[in-house]
């Protein structure tokens, strides 16, 4: 569509101006198709899988449910933008040690969700079941989650002394009985 205004935002630390961004363009499509950042994946496009997770001003956000033009002058970080940072190295190491990657399609979304949780919780992370629940918006079709949750626990320094509680992955009525 022509006649649409340009959009200026910061992506991975750099100011970018993208010409003619239509009102209904999603942040996901802006990143992948206008900026060529294909590390951000599309899964469901309806908020159910987390594959499209990016950081907006440091917080995890679903880019498939975010209009690109809401990002005017905001700071967007994709998995490409983490590369080489100490944060990325810590996540990579935790993922490698736990064996948390198989096909890798879900991995960028998980990495950004993890980074966001790590920043939010800082030095006082919640217990393991809570952390596992907080990763519940990211789906993985390969790994069965155990290794990913374990990577998060390692990253936040939450002890995994035994097996993860079974209730982490099975259905119990909400909250404690």
């Amino acid at each position: 569509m022509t006649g649409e205004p340009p959009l200026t935002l910061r992506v991975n630390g750099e100011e970018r101006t993208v010409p003619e961004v239509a009102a209904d363009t999603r942040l996901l499509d802006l990143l992948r198709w206008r900026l060529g950042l294909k590390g951000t994946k599309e899964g469901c496009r309806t908020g159910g899988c987390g594959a499209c997770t990016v950081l907006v001003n440091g917080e995890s956000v679903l880019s498939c449910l975010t209009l690109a033009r809401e990002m005017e002058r905001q700071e967007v970080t994709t998995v490409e933008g983490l590369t080489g940072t100490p944060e990325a190295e810590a996540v990579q190491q935790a993922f490698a040690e736990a064996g948390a990657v198989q096909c890798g399609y879900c991995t960028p979304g998980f990495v950004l969700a993890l980074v966001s949780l790590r920043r939010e919780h800082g030095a006082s992370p919640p217990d393991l079941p809570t952390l596992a629940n907080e990763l519940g918006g990211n789906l993985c079709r390969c790994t069965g989650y155990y290794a990913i949750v374990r990577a998060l626990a390692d990253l936040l320094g939450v002890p995994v002394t035994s097996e993860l509680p079974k209730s982490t992955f099975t259905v119990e009525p909400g909250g404690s009985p």
Partner: protein
Amino acid sequence: MAYALHFPRSFEEAFRLLDPQGQPPALPLAGGTDLLPAVEAGRWHPGALVSLSRLPLATFERAGDEVLIGGTLPLRRLEREPAIGELLPGFAEALREVGSVPLRHRATLGGNVVRASPASDLLPPLLALEASLDLRSQHGRRRVALVDFLRGSWETTLQRGELVERIRVPVPRPGSYRWQRVRPANDISQVGVATALVTSDARSPWRIAAGGMESHPQRLSGAEAALPQEDPSPGEIEEAVHRAREGTRLKDDRRAGEEYRRHLLGVLLRRSITSTVERARSMKGRRT
């Protein structure tokens, strides 16, 4: 599907853009987590979306015996407010069950309330807490109790051109929220039950509300009346469960059959009452 997109910087400008006579209608855009997929699926055909992101609505304030929650405050920020966990523990635990963390970084309380989903995890606790809404339009402001605002599934008394400025919730109130789903995280509840205690109301201290009903989430007044004291006897709890199960029309759909929901309603109500009683004990001395 093409629509215009506006970013008003004042309420005046927003109300002009949200002109109730406009065709096709202009819709307010808060977090967008529900609105955008609905528009993409063709369920709505707005002429314009009016983003509320530049308006001073993402606020949080404790004012005397209420908390005032701005209409566009993201749910994750609300859930991480220490005052919510301390003063409204039941609401806090419901907030943690909405969608996922990245979704809650953008989804807003005003959006959830206005949407009036029959499966909302936030409406049962807000009803049990006797929340009210400050609505604002070009004609001024009005305050309405949430129980009067909700009219049916996906149906409220919100007028075109009207915005949720604040959600008001009385504090402190011991309470709890119990739910059941197919998957524990990032799913939609089949039944959700919220209970809360109003200790200043000596004759009927309990407030109970549930979602998963045939229509929108509602108060269960029959069950409330079976609980005349803050610390109910086992017999009184069973009577409340009985009345809730008998007096409620529940949804029957692909997510859960009616009979199963009725079973859940009883189990979850029992658990929620027990948990609220425990919380009331540990909150003693801090509540009104």
